[in-house]
């Protein structure tokens, strides 16, 4: 359920088909995931999961798998 939520959230922000969103998908790997889009992703995650990320967490979120780890630390995975 939560897995689907994260995938659809990332797919929507990065304008990718959900099937292309895997844990290994990383920033810079697709054209749409640049530093400006990264901030959009951060805001979508904060709004979607009702949390506030620290700067270190934002920097650590380099791939979908990394985002999942950060969410787990917040008890959201």
């Amino acid at each position, binding site marked *: 359920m939560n897995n689907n939520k994260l995938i659809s959230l990332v797919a929507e922000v990065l304008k990718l088909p959900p099937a292309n969103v895997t844990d290994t998908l990383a920033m810079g790997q697709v054209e749409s995931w640049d530093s*400006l889009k990264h*901030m*959009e992703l*951060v*805001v979508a995650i904060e709004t979607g999961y009702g949390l*506030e*990320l*620290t*700067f270190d967490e934002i920097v650590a979120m380099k791939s979908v798998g990394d985002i999942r780890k950060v969410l787990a630390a917040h008890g959201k995975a």
Partner: protein
Amino acid sequence: MNLTGKKVLLTGGVRGLGRATVEKLVAKGATVCVFDIDTTGLTELAQQVPGVGAIQCDVSSADDVARAMGQYHEQYRCADVLVNNAGILSSAPLVRITPTGIETHDINLWNKTLAINLTSVFLMTSAVVSRMVTTRTRGVIVNISSVSAGGNAGQSAYSAAKAGVNALTATWAKELSLLGIRVIAIAPGFTETESTKQAVSEQVLKETISRVPLRRLGRAEEIAQAVVAAVENDFFNGKTWAVDGGLVI
């Protein structure tokens, strides 16, 4: 944004519009710190407006901004509001016909005007916004532009610098709004300050006033009031607000 208890960093607050803005912000309960190049003026300001922080800084110098920002962050941690106000008025046409031929706009004056009015805004904002981002502070950047940004005959460098300030305001609003950081600008028209009186002749002032629908110069406290109102209004973003008595309509 409610300014009570908010930390405001303002450049060029010793004199003129900056000074009037410092007083308005203090009256609103903000914790204000001023960066200015005028060391004597800073000492006087700190004595005259108790509680105001004063750090000497030439905002056109990258090294000086880095040093002063280090000092500021140590003392205040992170600004909630930055007001990029420091600036100089410079007037020179592109070319001037003289009895001996043609003179072109002095390159040193061009560089100096761009450095103090535009590069300073870039230097200060990058330093403050970096800290806002790392501390997740939802703040406001206020740039003091000018109606001259629309292009004022005899003010190539000044007009270009202020047009650049307007462009940065829009660009940064697009980049930073997602992080909760608003970027706005106030563009004063001709305002009654010492620097206006020194820089503009009586004749030109008279002629300017005749073009202002309200038939007068602005007052420093009216510009300060606009800065406060623009910061307080959370839906005002990315735009330049002309406070000019209707000069540019």
